[in-house]
C-alpha cells in the first residue's frame, strides 16, 4: 500500500467490506460538498486540500476522538489500527493509486474524473450496512433480505 509501504488491509483508505459473501463493498470518502467531518472536528485536525479538495488529516493534531466518524453520513473515517489518528482517503495527493491498480488489473471499475459542481456527492456517503443491503437485494432478490 502506497501510504504504508506494506500490505495492510486494516489500514487501507479504501476498505472492502464483505458482510455477505459476493457483496464486496468498497468503502471510502466521497468528498461531501459541505464536509461534515471537517466541521465536526474539535481539534482542527481536518482541512480541505486546495488542489484536490480531499480531506487532509493532520496526524499531529488528531486526538482520535472519533467525532468525525459520527458526523460522516457514511461512517467512513476510522482510527488507524496502530496509531492514534483518523484515516480518510486523501486521493494520494492527486494521483490515486487505487485507480492505477484497478486499471492495471484490467477491471476499469475506477476512473479519474474532474470533480463536478453539479453533483451532490454526499448522497453516496452511506454506511457499509446500507450499501450491503442494497446490493444484496439487487443480486439475490428476496433472499438478499434474509442473508443480511
Amino acid at each position, binding site marked *: 500500500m502506497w501510504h504504508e509501504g506494506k500490505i495492510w488491509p*486494516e489500514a487501507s483508505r479504501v476498505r472492502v*467490506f464483505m458482510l455477505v*459473501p*459476493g457483496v464486496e463493498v468498497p*468503502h471510502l470518502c466521497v468528498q461531501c460538498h459541505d464536509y461534515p467531518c471537517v466541521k465536526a472536528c474539535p481539534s482542527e485536525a481536518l482541512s480541505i486540500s486546495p488542489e484536490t479538495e480531499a480531506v487532509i488529516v493532520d496526524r499531529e493534531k488528531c486526538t482520535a476522538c472519533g467525532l468525525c*466518524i459520527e458526523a460522516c453520513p457514511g461512517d467512513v*473515517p476510522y482510527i488507524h489500527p496502530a496509531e492514534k489518528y483518523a484515516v480518510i482517503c486523501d486521493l494520494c495527493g492527486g494521483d490515486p493509486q487505487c485507480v492505477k491498480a484497478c486499471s492495471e488489473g484490467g477491471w476499469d471499475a475506477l476512473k479519474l474524473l474532474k470533480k463536478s459542481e453539479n453533483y451532490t456527492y454526499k448522497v453516496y456517503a452511506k454506511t457499509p450496512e446500507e450499501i450491503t443491503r442494497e446490493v444484496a437485494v439487487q443480486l439475490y432478490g428476496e433472499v438478499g433480505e434474509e442473508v443480511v
Partner: protein
Amino acid sequence: MPGGYAGKFLEVDLTSRNVRDIKFSDEVLRQYLGGRGLATKVLWDRLGARWEEVDPLGPENILLMFTGPLTGYAPGARLCVSGKSPQSNGIVGSTIAGEFPVELKCAGYDGIIFTGKAENPVYLSVFDSDVEIKDASHIWGKDAKETLKVLVKEGREALAKSRPRRGVWKEPAAVYIGPAGERLVRVAAVVGKWAHAAGYGGYGAVMGSKNLKAVIAKGTGPLPEAADMEKAVEAAEAISRINLRYTHLRHWGTGYLGYDVGARLSAEPVKNWQEEWHDEKSYSADKFEPFWAKRFWGDFGCPVTCLKLAVIRSGPFKGAITDNPDYENQAYLGTNLGVFTAEGNIYLTALIDDLGLCGIQCGNVLGFAAELYEKGILTREDLGGIDLKWGDVEAFASLVRMIVERREIGDVLAEGTYRAALKISEMKSVDALKYAVVAKGIGIGAHGIRSGEDYPHHETYVCSVQGGDHTSPAYIPLDDDLSELTVALYDSGVVCWFNFFEEGTKDHIWGLIKAVTGWEITPEEWYGTSARRIIHTQRVALLLGGPDIRWDPKTHDDIPSKWYKPLKAGPYAGKAVDRKIIEEAKREYYEAIGWDENGVPKSEELRRLGLEEVDKKAEALRG
C-alpha cells in the same frame, strides 16, 4: 527470522481449553515452508509413532489450519487444512481460498493446531492476540448462510466492544462446518464464504468430531514483512500480469468445462462413470451464464477471479445461490447424476454448500447409490422410498438430506463411497466395490483417463499420496507443472494453483519465495529434497492407515475396475485402460520417486532426507 512469517502458531487444546503460542525453527520452516508440508511434518512428529491406532474422528487426531509464507503475497490466498484424514486414513493437504489466512497472518499467527475435543459446541475467535473459545450451541445445526450471518454479527460486535470509537469494523473472516461435519459425515468439507470448501480429506468431519463449529479471525496488523518488499511486489505483479493475459478462467471460471470435458475430451463422469462422454448442449457454459448475478468474484488479491456468482431467481429452485458452479460441481452434481440442466446443477450445488458437504465426494457417493439402484442392488425401500432415477434433481436432493441426517441408508452413504461399498457388499452379498470410483478411500476427481485426452496420467490416481484428489496428481516427470511435487509447493506456500496455471507463472515462484522469505530455494532443492520429504511421509502414513482400513499397494495402487472396461459412446468409444500399462506406469513412478518394488519409500532414500523415524515405521511395511 525469515520474511513472510508471523513467527508463531496457535495451539488450542479443546479438551482443556488451553491456548498457547508455539514456534518452529527456521530450519524446519525452510524445509517444509508451511501448509501441506509443515502439516505433514507436525502430524508425523506427533502421531507417527502410533499412526495406525489413531482414529481420525477421535479426540487424539489433530486438526491443522496452516498458512504459508507466500500467503497474501502471491496473488490468490489459500489456507491449508489437514490432519489424519477420515477418508484415506493418511494425510491430505486440503486447501480453501479466501481472506481467512490473510486475517490470521495479520493477527500474528501462521496457523492453528487444534488438539482434543471440546465438551460442547464451540467456535474459536482470533482477534489479534486475543484468542477466545466461544460457545457455539446457538449455531450448531445451522446451515452455511445462517452460521456465517451469526459469526459476522457476533464478531463485529465483539470487535466494536473491545475497541470502541474506532469506527465501523470490517467483518472477521471465517471458516466453518455445516450440519454434515457436525454429524461426522466423512464427505463433509471445511467451508467458507458460503461456496468455498476444503473438500478432499473430509476435515469437516474432523472439525465436527472436535465439536468445533467455526474459526473466525481478524488481524489489524500488516501482513508479516517480506525480506525484500520491492522484489516481492515485482514477482507478484509479474505473475498477475501473465494471468491477466489469459482470460479464460476470468471470463468463464472452470464452468465452461461441464460441457467441454465430456463433449470434447470424453473424460467427464456421466452416470457414475458408466460413460465419460456426452454432447448435451443444454449443459454448455452459455446456459449457466444467464444465472450469473456477478461475473467476477475473486479471493484476496486474485487477478484470475475464477468464481462466478450463480443465483436462481424464479421457478422451483428459487433462492439457490452458489458460485459458478465450478467444473467439479458441474460434473459431480450434474453429469454424474444424469442432471443436464443449469438450474438443477446450481440447486444441488447450493444445497451441498449450505449443508457443508464436499461436492466431489458427495456427488461420487450419490452416483454410486444411483447405479446400485439402477442395477437393482439397492431397492426403493432401501432408499427410504426415493425413486433414485438419473437426472431427478429432487430425488438426489432428498438423498443428500438423508446422508446429512444419517437417516437409514443415508447413514451408510455418509461414510463415503468406499466404506459404503464395503458395507453394502456385506448387506447384499454382492461386490459393490466394482461400482465405486475411488482411490484410497477418496472419490476420484472429475477427470478420467480412459480417452487419454484429459491431463491425468496412468499413474495419477494410482500413486497419488492423496488418493483420488485430482489437485494432487502423481505425474512423470516429477518436476512437471502438474506433478504432485509441484502442487505440494503451492499447497505449502500456501497459494492458489489457478494463479500458476499459465505458462511462465511458475518461473516466478522461486523469485517470490526468495523475495518474501529471503531463502534461495532452487527447483533442485525442492524437487530433490523438500518435496520428497513431504510426499514420502504422506505415502508412509497412507500405507500405515488404520484403524478401520489399510491400503496394500498390490491391491490398492490401482484404478477403479470400471476404467478397465471400454468407453461405450462418443469419439473415443471402445477405448479402455490396459492393465499392463497401469503396472508399467506404477513401476516407473515407484522407481522415479524412490519407492521400492512394493511401493514403499526406500530406506536409503528416507535416510538421505533425514527421515529416520519415518523409515523405522516403513520397515514394517516392507515386510
